[in-house]
């Protein structure tokens, strides 16, 4: 394409503006389509982020380390030593931002009126705070002061079902490693509220040392939760933790621990591509029509260029270049529009009017659109690739014109 590439660059650009009204209308259509692609991708990404992060809040951590049999039998017998040596060194290196060892065992909690099956979490409040896994809201009393705190923190819904309240004593029971009942009485020092009632009913917080003492497991823990920032990039650093943990321990990412939650990401990516392709298909009719009209109006001119010795391939490239200019201008405008409209909304859109539905989807009442460079790149790739494919037919037909017939066209 070397000989003549200069002339087709000029011709394509000038031809684009021969019918500037038509070009501007098409440009507006492409820009609107690109804006819609990116805007809805940002909304979808924001929704997915919220759903996944809310789900992760109950795991928590993007990576968890367990005894190999823990997931099959989450009893205290399958606890592990607190991290040390190589594993501890790996947990203290970036991108790991925080980690916490906790005891997590099935238990029964009994008040004076009722009893319930729960999950007892023995936690280190400071480490859990860094991990961001503490209850969202303490509505009464306080959270645990330290790892030796003797109190219990219950969910509001559980307290209601047990008909107990702040300051009252309850009994918590579980099994020790010898399968004997281990129990102790404790005072309710705090009531928390979670986004979902089921979370409030399931998790009971106690200090880690207190629970370890009750179960007689020394400093052993059920799991180590690790957080490394962006949950989407967990696969990049999880293998290093797994290597340091050795073969005796099982290191799982959140996508492995909760495949449903993991599938949300793949689903979002799939929906984003499908939505972009559908929007583009609507656009492509306009694009093909624009190019077909441009070819129809210039049949004689194309015939002349062929008569003068311009190879059909150069005519094809010229028309594709014309289409590419239009697509790139539309993309630039659409991306700019999307950036200008999404950025101010990143602080949140109030959707409390449909709060119930949002909660059912595991989301809050504020939607945070998330503008991502990869979504903008994806929109650009979809528009350029499909745009050029759609332009190929009219361009190919133009390149195949018979010069004599084209020159005689009136």
């Amino acid at each position, binding site marked *: 394409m070397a*000989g003549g590439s200069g*002339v087709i660059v000029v011709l394509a650009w000038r031809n684009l503006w021969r019918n500037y009204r038509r070009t501007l209308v098409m440009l507006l259509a492409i820009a609107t389509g690109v804006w819609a692609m990116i805007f809805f991708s940002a909304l979808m990404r924001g929704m997915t982020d919220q759903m996944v992060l809310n789900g992760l809040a109950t795991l928590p951590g993007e990576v968890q380390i367990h005894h190999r049999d823990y997931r099959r039998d989450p009893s205290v017998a399958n606890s592990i030593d607190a991290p040390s040596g190589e594993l501890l060194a790996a947990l203290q290196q970036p991108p790991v931002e925080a980690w916490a060892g906790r005891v997590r065992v099935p238990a029964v909690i009994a008040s004076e009126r009722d009893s319930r099956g729960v999950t007892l979490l023995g936690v280190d409040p400071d480490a859990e705070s860094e991990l961001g896994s503490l209850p969202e809201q303490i509505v009464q009393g306080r959270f645990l002061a330290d790892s030796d705190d003797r109190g219990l923190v219950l969910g509001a819904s559980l307290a209601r079902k047990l008909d107990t309240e702040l300051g009252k004593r309850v009994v918590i029971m579980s099994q020790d490693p010898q399968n004997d009942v281990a129990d102790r009485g404790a005072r309710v020092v705090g009531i928390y509220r979670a986004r979902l009632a089921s979370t409030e009913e399931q998790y009971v917080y106690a200090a880690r040392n207190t629970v370890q003492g009750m179960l007689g497991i020394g400093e052993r823990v059920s799991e180590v939760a690790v957080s490394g920032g962006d949950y989407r990039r967990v696969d990049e650093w999880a293998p290093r933790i797994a290597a340091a943990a050795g073969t005796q321990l099982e290191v799982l990412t959140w996508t492995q621990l909760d495949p449903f939650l993991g599938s949300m990401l793949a689903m979002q990516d799939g929906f984003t591509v499908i939505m972009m392709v559908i929007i583009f298909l609507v656009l492509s009719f306009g694009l093909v029509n624009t190019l077909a009209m441009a070819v129809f109006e210039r049949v*004689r*001119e194309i015939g002349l260029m062929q008569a003068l*010795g*311009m190879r059909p391939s150069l005519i094809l490239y010229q028309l594709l270049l014309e289409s590419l200019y239009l697509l790139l201008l539309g993309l630039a405008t659409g991306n700019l529009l999307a950036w200008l409209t999404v950025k101010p909304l990143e602080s949140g859109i109030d959707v409390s009017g449909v709060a119930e539905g949002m909660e059912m989807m595991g989301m809050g009442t504020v939607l945070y659109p998330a503008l991502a460079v990869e979504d903008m790149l994806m929109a650009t790739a979809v528009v350029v690739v499909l745009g050029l494919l759609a332009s190929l037919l009219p361009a190919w037909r133009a390149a195949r014109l018979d010069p004599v017939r084209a*020159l005689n066209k009136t």
Partner: protein
Amino acid sequence: MSAIICKELCKTFRQGDEVITGLDRVSLAIDAGEFVCLSGPSGSGKTTLLNAMGGLDTPDSGAISVGEQRLDTMSKSALANLRLNHIGFVFQAYNLIPVLSARENVEFIMQVQGMPAAQRRALADDVLAEVGLAGMEGRLPSELSGGQQQRVAVARAIASKPRLVLADEPTANLDTHSAAQLMELFVALNEERGVTFVISTHDVRVMGYARRLIRMQDGRIVSDQAQQPQGMEPA
């Protein structure tokens, strides 16, 4: 040495159910440096023969050569290369590219040939001056008169120094004065550069410039005579 050799060229066209004869066993040879006019009424086959000589159309049968190259056996791409590098075209309707200036129109072929920008720009300006359009290099076709547009088309045809120029009714849309200027330009180029000219026309004023006049009718050559050029005769 022959610039063009046609042997038993035949070409038919379909128009609905009707078969129209474009060329009927046409044979001729045109030597390098000749100035030839093809004349005859509309539908006599002049343009069809000219298109065959330029590799724009392929005959149904027969053989045609330009220089050493057999056009009837060449691929479309090879024909495009031949037109690009060896043949200049001038059409009846000036046929300039409307979005390009006079200079850019003249540069077009050289640019497709891959000639460096400075060289082709200098050549284009020289040729435009040669056809009397100095100072109009930057004008778009819409800013030029019909005669001036045809001069740009001639400048484009000769700028890359082709061996052969094919002109199809080049004066049809020009007034007498512009037509005479154009024909004198053709004669000058033929005499000074030795470019072979084949011009189709049914304008007797144009025929007066030819040194060889070929008359066609119903796709056949009915006469082929050398003549003394007389210049523009009154219509």
